[in-house]
């Protein structure tokens, strides 16, 4: 299974539920396209729910960084939700864990947006 992306709105926060694999090719490009589309449409508060991500490679990590930069440069905020051990370990190894604002429960993450 490649990546499956679905979006929903919780107040003024856009939640993206990500499932499957964020790897070089279809997975990472789908996430990139969605993030750019959302920013282009004026979404400023984006919460990426990675709870059902089964696999992420360095390309996928690059897309998380790219998304974060794109959103931030457009005056918005991007946060991460529900990291599984694998994703969390990778973000820690790459020293990105403290770059992202990471949350474990959705309500708390929603409240954390300015």
């Amino acid at each position: 299974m490649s990546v499956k992306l679905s979006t929903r709105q919780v107040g003024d926060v856009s939640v993206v539920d990500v499932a499957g694999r964020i790897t070089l090719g279809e997975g990472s490009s789908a996430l990139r396209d969605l993030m750019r589309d959302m920013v282009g449409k004026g979404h400023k508060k984006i919460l990426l729910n990675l709870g059902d991500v089964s696999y992420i490679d360095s390309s996928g990590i690059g897309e998380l960084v790219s998304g974060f930069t794109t959103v931030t440069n457009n005056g918005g905020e991007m946060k991460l939700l529900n990291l599984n051990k694998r994703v969390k370990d990778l973000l820690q190894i790459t020293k990105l864990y403290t770059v992202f604002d990471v949350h474990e429960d959705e309500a708390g993450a929603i409240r954390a947006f300015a």
Partner: protein
Amino acid sequence: MRENEHHVPETVERLLDSTLESVESAEELALSVAQRAGFDDDDLMKIGMAVRESMVNAVVHGNRYNDHKKVRFSVSHNGERYTIRIADEGEGFDFNALPDPLAPENLMRTSGRGIFLVRSFMDEFEMRRREPSGTEVTLVKYVVSK
């Protein structure tokens, strides 16, 4: 290590096209041998990712998806060492020019973490230039009881 009495040494070699499908098949092949070698789930994850990153480097950055260039892939274990070799036919690159992905100025780069992750996940990692062209990487994980 899993309890497994069938750690029979084996070697598997493939000549692969420069495609993303080859990345998938190399990872699957590497994992099937690693499972038979007795690695646990945590090590399997590390091995799978190290192979994926190395194969992506060979296919994308080395051979640049060129139809005429192949990736030589081999995986073996002898009961003590699990070894993977991946060789491309690309132009090669300056091994000393690899940026440190953990340096503050590189932290927000969208690429450049692949080899760093491979080094992190394997016990030994070596790159060498091939003649007349190309790069070969050797990845080793020790087969030891935990």
